[in-house]
């Protein structure tokens, strides 16, 4: 029997960490992820798990220590947000290129400036090309579920890549919701014991991690890293299937909410998907065929699957909680439009920037977007293909 409880997203992730009982957690506090290392160190102090907690002097150090202990052979993780993730930038790429299957709880918060502590996806999107797997959650339950699946994905021999489990700062990290938890023994059986084949503290089997590479090797190494990210697609689906068998919950690359017959689809990631679903329910009552494609896996990017899922629609709103400053669209907008082009899917696509630095995103915002799409399709109304929603003007 699953355990019914109520928890914030941070509590849910800290509880998952306690159940997984990893070997090492170096961490440095930063809002809104601070509670995760705080709660884990409380579990350790109470003897509820025996993870080695390393209080470090910065996020540069927490990521360095995480990948160092992972290389040594210890299952390792850290947690951070915003500027903390930015300070880890160099080590994020080192962890991925050294093929370290460590984990991170990322609680999404915007980056300066203007300085602000609230939710958007600027931090995670900034790390989108660092070679980490990135999985996003709509709610506390998904943050918990995704964290339990982190190591089985990252540690699979076909993958060996670091994994970032993301949730929206404050919106899910601090809001308390009902949640279903697994029993400890079921979590440990699902996650398994970490048995790396090669690791530094392995007597009689010396090795080096992260050697200097001249030009004759580096390009080939990166091809191998990209192939591991490609292989992660199969592994993510396999692990999600196995998790669904255990719990009855969860999705593969994305959740398709009322999309099968939808004329208009909103593609969205994170907590705002809940708002979009509520608006879709309301619009369905008025006879408007609206749907939501909630993206769960952003890296590796399931381009072909997204394009295929959108093929039957008349128009699509692609929602980015991040400004790219490239004058061409947000990260999701750019990548999904490229995917539609490559797969020769000819649905209309509009890219919206929403919810920056904690700006509210409401069901009314969603009604307006679907109305835009409808007017565009039915009356040929022209508007910018890349625009802000919820902006005062």
């Amino acid at each position, binding site marked *: 029997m699953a355990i019914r409880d109520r928890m914030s997203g941070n509590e849910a992730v800290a509880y998952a960490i306690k159940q997984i009982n990893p070997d090492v957690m170096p961490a440095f506090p930063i809002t809104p992820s601070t509670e995760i290392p705080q709660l884990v160190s409380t579990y350790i102090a109470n003897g509820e798990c025996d993870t080695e907690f390393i209080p470090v002097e910065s996020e540069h150090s927490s990521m360095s220590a995480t990948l160092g202990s992972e290389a040594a052979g210890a299952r390792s993780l850290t947690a951070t947000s915003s500027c903390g993730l930015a300070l880890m930038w160099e080590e994020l790429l080192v962890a991925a*290129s*050294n*093929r*370290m299957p460590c984990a991170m709880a990322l609680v999404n918060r915007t980056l300066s400036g203007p300085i602000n502590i609230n939710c958007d996806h600027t931090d995670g999107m900034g790390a989108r090309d660092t070679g980490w797997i990135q999985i996003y959650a709509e709610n506390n339950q998904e943050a918990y579920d995704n964290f339990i699946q982190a190591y089985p994905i990252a540690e699979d021999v076909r993958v*060996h890549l670091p994994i970032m489990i993301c949730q929206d700062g404050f919106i899910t990290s601090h809001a308390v919701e009902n949640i279903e938890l697994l029993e400890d023994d079921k979590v440990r059986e699902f996650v398994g014991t970490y048995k790396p084949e*090669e690791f530094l503290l392995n007597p009689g*089997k*010396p*090795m*080096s*991690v*992260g*050697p200097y*590479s*001249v030009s*004759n*090797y580096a*390009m*080939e*190494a990166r*091809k*191998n*890293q990209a192939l591991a990210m490609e292989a992660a697609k199969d592994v993510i689906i396999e692990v999600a299937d196995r998790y669904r068998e255990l719990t009855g919950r969860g999705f593969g690359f994305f959740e398709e909410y009322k999309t099968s017959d939808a004329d208009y689809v909103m593609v969205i990631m994170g907590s705002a998907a809940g708002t979009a679903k509520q608006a879709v329910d309301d619009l369905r009552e008025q006879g408007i065929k609206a749907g939501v494609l909630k993206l769960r896996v952003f890296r590796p990017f399931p381009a072909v699957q997204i394009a295929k899922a959108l093929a039957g629609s008349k128009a699509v709103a692609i929602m980015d909680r991040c400004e790219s400053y490239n004058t061409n669209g947000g990260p999701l907008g750019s990548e999904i439009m490229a995917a539609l082009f490559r797969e020769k899917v000819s649905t209309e696509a509009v890219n919206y920037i929403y919810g920056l630095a904690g700006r509210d995103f409401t069901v009314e915002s969603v009604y307006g977007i679907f109305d835009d799409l409808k007017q565009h399709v039915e009356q040929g109304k022209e508007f910018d293909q890349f625009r802000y929603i919820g902006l005062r003007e």
Partner: protein
Amino acid sequence: MRTDINKINEKSAYYELTEGLQMYAAATSKQFNTGEWRTNTPVFLEEKCKQCLLCVPVCPDSSIPVVNCKRTDFDYDHCKGCGICVKACPFGAIEMREGQ
């Protein structure tokens, strides 16, 4: 399966390399002749040397070999010519010479 790194060279295809370019062997840095980087060269003046061994631990490249408690001539395959040993020597038994 441990990949025999001696079978890997600069003509190996990507699928022949190890994961993350990990090296499955010990003390492989010996095979990397960092001495090629040297622009100035320390010269050991054996007649002035008192065998105090102050130079040995300060060498960042472990390029001052010690045999039977006595330092010998430099390992020029790995000495980068940083000159720290020259500063450490109280007896003027090491001099820097310009060039390789």
